[in-house]
């Protein structure tokens, strides 16, 4: 059976690995526009000279040979023919029995001023972006980053390590507004500022100014303030990469539409990873890739782990974890613990933990995702929230694997 | 039948005994080492605190302080001072009993067997009296008066008993002890919940307790014992389980207080008492030596021929001694009387009697010794012993070990007899040291344990290493019991010594390891050291002399060790005394102490390495003395 995968990110690689584990004889092919395997989450480590291209890889060097996978690196898929079951590359037509689309997402560049057209504006999604920025960084004097989310701060962190002055423009009143609350954000903001970063919060870009080379020299804020810069990095969100679907008959709007088995509207065509819009996080992509792969091998499997409201951050060796809904509503109870080098916030609604932020001390914190995701009642524990551990739910299978032993009534 | 844990016993330096114990149908300490081999790391490092209801608190990188805020230093040193205070208390209990016994005996005009020692004591502490009884009473009173002083009143005899340069050092450091019992009391108070949290201050207290322990608990106890029980005489004696003769009614004695047996041992040789034994079918009564009090009798054995059979073994031989089946009664008055003998006594119907309730055994009949009622108590003990013999022997199968030990262990060595042996003065020994024929002196003292390599393994191995380096070894304590059963105190052991020491030993017909007897005799070793230092006109820390308690076991040993440090001597220990969790304690004891008293603690569990370290220290001291 010919299993063809488009994309060599988390979902594509996980799918290939899963197919190979299930079936030794399937003919597996990966086509990727990327020329190497790399972890998107580590791009900033390349920009910051912490890692070279090899150490960006999240699979062993011999991954393709040991798993007997054919790989077409640096190849764009021109079209997908779902009627005849093949995809068209530049110089090649690849037939498939099953096709997996795991093309991920693209950075969104807003249509403001010359952002879309200027020659010194970059997204931060691909190794090519990271490479270009790393090459140009020694010669730029002032870098402006649009967006103070995770990606914006990642690249800022890398550039600060290179002693580059960075200014970040953010529409929200705080940094990392999607991930953490203002208290935890303020701690990071201070650390970034101490390391040479400037922030313009509550700020909207309304225009840009460019020179004769088509390079942006200033951006203009809503307030009328002009900020000089000679490089702009846009980290203002992503959009599923759906370009190659045109004319394929595969249904999509913003993202590809998939059923619970991650099958698209076309027979034998599956999708996994952020292109499905089911989650823009690494583990979700991996799990989607694994699920799609099982279905491609006729092992009927639903994708169930749709919980993606979770993230960890680690800047300046200060780690933070956030899970669930971190914005309390009026009826919620909020528990806060602040001790030196540690900030903890737990949000409770109807005896159930709905969100948590831990900053500084992440010890033994894995349980929180389980408790939040599974809506476990913690009110009956007769124990401080701060000392909850797996011991409170301890269960063990005969084969020695742990399981949660929660009274049924506690599971809502 | 007692359940026992397979036949896994700990290793032993005493191979004959090791084999015997492994085949015993009952469990002994040697088997239990296996089931207790997993040690709690917090305990090993001394960083577990149970001083309050918030505990036990333990130090980890994630919990660097106890609930109360105590650091690892506080926990460790507090535990350590408690242990030293308890150990000191044990020795002070012994000297108190001996002094009281001396006074009672003198008041009753009872037998005083060591009049030379009495005169020596009187001279040391400046006492005159019309006759021996008056002198003895005055000596005893002087000792007791000091013991009972409050902690804020310095003891009067310290200056008279201590070597002058040491006294000056102690005075300078402010560690002259108050009343010995009060010092123990103070140690207990200081280390109670949320009192002292100054680790250095508490370590200073350990030194103070060391001085009161050493001068009173050790030095004076020996001398007072010699007055009452007779002075040691050098002789050859049999040692090991071979000394047990089943044709006699056998009483195994354990403890540290020889005086409590003084009356009984007189009675046991009275013809009418022997006749009672004969009537029961035995040839008479015999005392079988075990633990330090056995060493006491061995040391003074010349006075008890026909009664004392010999020293069978130290504390961790006691279970094997009982397992021979030929012991009828265990008569105990102090440590090291292991609780583990109780089930063996049950199994073999051995009667247990305690004569000092500080060491009351669960199975034992309590017959608290009292001077006034000693006649009645002795009679009762004799009657019960005969009864025990009669009822148990017919139903007991003997399991003797005649091949254990040897017949020619040199014993009776003391500060007096050694000097006499050398011709009345120390110069022959000093000449040998100065000329390098003997490189130096190592006092291998203290207890026996089962964990520093096994039963007496480190003690015996270290001793062998030291004598092979031409370092003469003097011993006191349960270490003596192990070393003698392994044959190192026979003249033949000269073969194991380095060429120079071997030649000397062969010429004089002595072993390279000289046995001063019980742990109390550490006090005699101190006298030898002082006399050598006096003759050389130097202070103790300058002597090419090292102290080692390779297999220290008990809190008493820690108090002894504190005395060694106060004397300014290098003190080697095989296993750390639960202090390594404290950087302060380790630094003060192993480094800073050199500047304070001149002493230092060396911790090493390897015999070869330890011997090399001790040899190097001796060589450094020789170099400093330009010899």
């Amino acid at each position, binding site marked *: 059976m010919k299993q063809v995968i488009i994309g060599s990110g988390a979902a594509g690689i*996980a799918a290939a690995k899963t197919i190979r584990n299930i079936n030794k004889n399937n003919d597996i092919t990966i086509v990727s526009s990327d020329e190497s395997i790399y*972890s*998107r*989450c*580590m791009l900033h*480590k390349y920009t910051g000279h912490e890692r070279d291209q090899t*150490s960006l*890889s*999240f*699979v*062993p060097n011999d991954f393709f040979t040991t798993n007997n996978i054919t790989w077409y690196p640096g190849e764009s898929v021109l079209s997908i023919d779902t009627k005849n079951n093949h995809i068209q590359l530049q110089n090649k037509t690849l037939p498939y029995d099953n096709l997996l689309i795991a093309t991920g997402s693209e950075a969104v560049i807003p249509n403001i001023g010359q952002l879309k057209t200027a020659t010194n504006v970059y997204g931060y999604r691909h190794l090519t972006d990271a490479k270009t920025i790393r090459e140009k960084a020694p010669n730029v004097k002032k870098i402006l980053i649009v967006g103070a989310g995770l990606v914006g701060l990642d690249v800022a962190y890398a550039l600060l390590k290179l002693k580059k002055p960075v200014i970040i423009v953010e529409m929200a009143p705080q940094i990392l507004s999607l991930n953490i609350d203002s208290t935890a954000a303020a701690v990071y903001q201070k650390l970034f500022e101490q390391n040479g970063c400037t922030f313009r919060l509550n700020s909207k870009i309304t225009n840009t100014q460019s020179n004769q080379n088509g390079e942006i020299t200033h951006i203009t804020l809503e307030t009328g303030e002009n900020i000089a810069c000679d490089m702009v990095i846009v980290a203002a969100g992503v959009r599923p990469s759906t370009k190659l679907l045109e004319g394929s008959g595969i249904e999509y709007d913003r993202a590809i539409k998939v059923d619970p088995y991650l099958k698209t509207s076309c027979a034998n065509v599956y999708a996994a990873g952020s292109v499905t819009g089911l989650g823009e996080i*690494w*583990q979700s992509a*991996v*799990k989607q890739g694994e699920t799609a792969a099982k279905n491609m091998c006729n092992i009927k499997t639903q994708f169930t782990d749709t919980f993606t409201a*979770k*993230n*960890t951050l*680690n800047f300046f*060796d*200060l*780690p933070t*974890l956030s*899970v669930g809904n971190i914005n309390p509503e009026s009826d919620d109870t909020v528990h806060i613990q602040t001790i030196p080098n540690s900030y903890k916030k737990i949000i409770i609604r109807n005896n159930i933990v709905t969100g948590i932020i831990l900053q500084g001390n*992440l*010890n*033994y*914190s*894995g*349980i*929180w*995702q*389980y408790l939040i995701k599974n809506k476990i009642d913690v009110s009956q524990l*007769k*124990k401080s929230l701060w000392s909850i*551990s*797996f*011991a*409170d739910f*301890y269960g*063990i299978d005969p*084969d*020695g*694997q*742990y399981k949660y032993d929660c009274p049924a009534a506690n599971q809502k | 039948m007692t359940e026992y844990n397979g036949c896994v016993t700990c290793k032993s330096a005493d191979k004959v005994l090791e084999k015997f114990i492994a085949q015993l149908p009952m469990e002994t300490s040697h088997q239990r080492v296996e089931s207790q081999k*997993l*040690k*709690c*790391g*917090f305990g*090993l*490092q001394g960083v577990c605190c149970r001083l309050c209801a918030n505990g036990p608190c*333990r130090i*980890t*990188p*994630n919990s*660097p302080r106890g609930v109360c805020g105590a650091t*690892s230093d506080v926990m460790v040193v507090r535990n350590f001072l408690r242990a030293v205070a308890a150990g000191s208390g044990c020795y002070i209990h012994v000297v108190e009993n001996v002094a009281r016994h001396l006074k009672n005996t003198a008041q009753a005009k009872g037998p005083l067997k060591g009049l030379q020692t009495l005169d020596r004591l009187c001279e040391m502490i400046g006492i005159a009296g019309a006759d021996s009884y008056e002198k003895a009473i005055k000596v005893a009173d002087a000792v007791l008066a000091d013991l009972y002083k409050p902690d804020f009143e310095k003891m009067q005899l310290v200056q008279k008993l201590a070597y002058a340069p040491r006294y000056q050092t102690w005075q300078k450091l402010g560690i002259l002890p108050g009343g010995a019992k009060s010092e123990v009391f103070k140690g207990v108070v200081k280390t109670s919940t949320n009192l002292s949290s100054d680790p250095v201050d508490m370590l200073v207290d350990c030194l103070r307790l060391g001085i009161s322990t050493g001068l009173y608990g050790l030095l004076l106890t020996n001398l007072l014992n010699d007055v009452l029980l007779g002075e040691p005489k050098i002789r050859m004696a049999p040692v090991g389980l071979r000394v047990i003769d089943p044709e006699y009614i056998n009483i195994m004695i354990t403890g540290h207080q020889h005086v409590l047996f003084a009356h009984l041992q007189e009675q046991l040789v009275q013809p009418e008492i022997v006749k009672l034994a004969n009537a029961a079918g035995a040839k008479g009564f015999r005392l079988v030596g075990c633990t330090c009090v056995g060493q006491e009798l061995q040391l003074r054995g010349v006075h008890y021929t026909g009664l004392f059979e010999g020293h069978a073994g130290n504390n961790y031989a006691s279970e094997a001694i009982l397992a021979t089946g030929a012991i009828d009664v265990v008569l105990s008055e102090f440590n090291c009387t292991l609780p583990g003998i109780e089930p063996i006594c049950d199994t073999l119907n051995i009667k247990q009697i305690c004569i000092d309730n500080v060491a009351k055994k669960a199975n034992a009949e309590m017959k608290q010794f009292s001077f006034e009622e000693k006649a009645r108590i002795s009679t009762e003990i004799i009657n019960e012993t005969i009864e025990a013999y009669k009822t148990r022997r017919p139903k007991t199968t003997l399991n003797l070990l005649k091949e254990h030990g040897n017949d020619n262990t040199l014993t009776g060595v003391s500060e007096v007899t050694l000097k006499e042996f050398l011709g009345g003065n120390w110069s022959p020994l000093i000449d040998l040291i100065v000329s390098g024929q003997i490189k130096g002196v190592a006092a291998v003292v203290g207890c026996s344990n089962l964990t520093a390599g096994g039963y007496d393994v480190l003690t015996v191995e270290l001793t062998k290493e030291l004598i092979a380096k031409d370092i003469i070894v003097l011993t006191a304590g349960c270490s003596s019991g192990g070393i003698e059963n392994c044959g190192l105190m026979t003249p033949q052991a000269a073969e194991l010594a380095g060429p120079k020491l071997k030649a000397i030993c062969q010429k004089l017909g002595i072993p390279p390891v000289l046995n001063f007897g019980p742990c109390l005799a550490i006090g005699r070793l101190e006298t030898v050291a002082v006399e050598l230092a006096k003759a050389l006109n130097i202070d103790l820390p300058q002597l090419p002399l090292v102290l080692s308690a390779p297999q220290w076991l008990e809190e008493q040993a820690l108090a002894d060790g504190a005395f060694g440090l106060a004397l300014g001597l290098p003190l080697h220990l095989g296993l*750390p005394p639960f202090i*390594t969790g404290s950087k302060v304690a380790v630094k003060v004891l192993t480094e800073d102490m050199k500047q304070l008293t001149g002493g230092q603690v060396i911790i090493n569990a390897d015999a070869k390495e330890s011997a090399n370290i001790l040899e190097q220290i001796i060589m450094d001291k020789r170099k400093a003395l330009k010899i």
Partner: protein
Amino acid sequence: MSQIQRIMIDHTKCNGCKSCSLACMQAHRQDSGSLYDLDLTDGTNESRNSIQTDANGVYFPLFCRHCDDPQCVSACMSGAMTKNPENKLVQYDGKQCAACFMCVMNCPFGIIKPDNPTKTYVIKCDFCAKDKNGPNCVRACPNKAIYIEEVV
């Protein structure tokens, strides 16, 4: 079907002595020495296991299970955390780790943690891979609350 070894747990035998934790620290210490001189005030000595109590004070040994479906592995974006297909152990490569701590968040049992002093790597059971005698924690347990078993 391959067999794997797992540290089995009988929590009823645990009395919270933490010998397993000390053994783990000792087995993974950077310097050399004995249990006597393991520096318990040095934060770099961390245990991969822990003992926690429930509200009734009952002890529960919390040890990495090297799960059949390890969440820490699927969450790992650097390739540092992998499931070894041969011995089924979940292995951690500190050099490859990017310290994102997604594994910490995704371990449902809260076993994995960032290192305390630097927060630059994770503390994770390696089954004492370098020790031919196997996991030191198991040998240190005086109560046999943890023991090795082959799991089919």
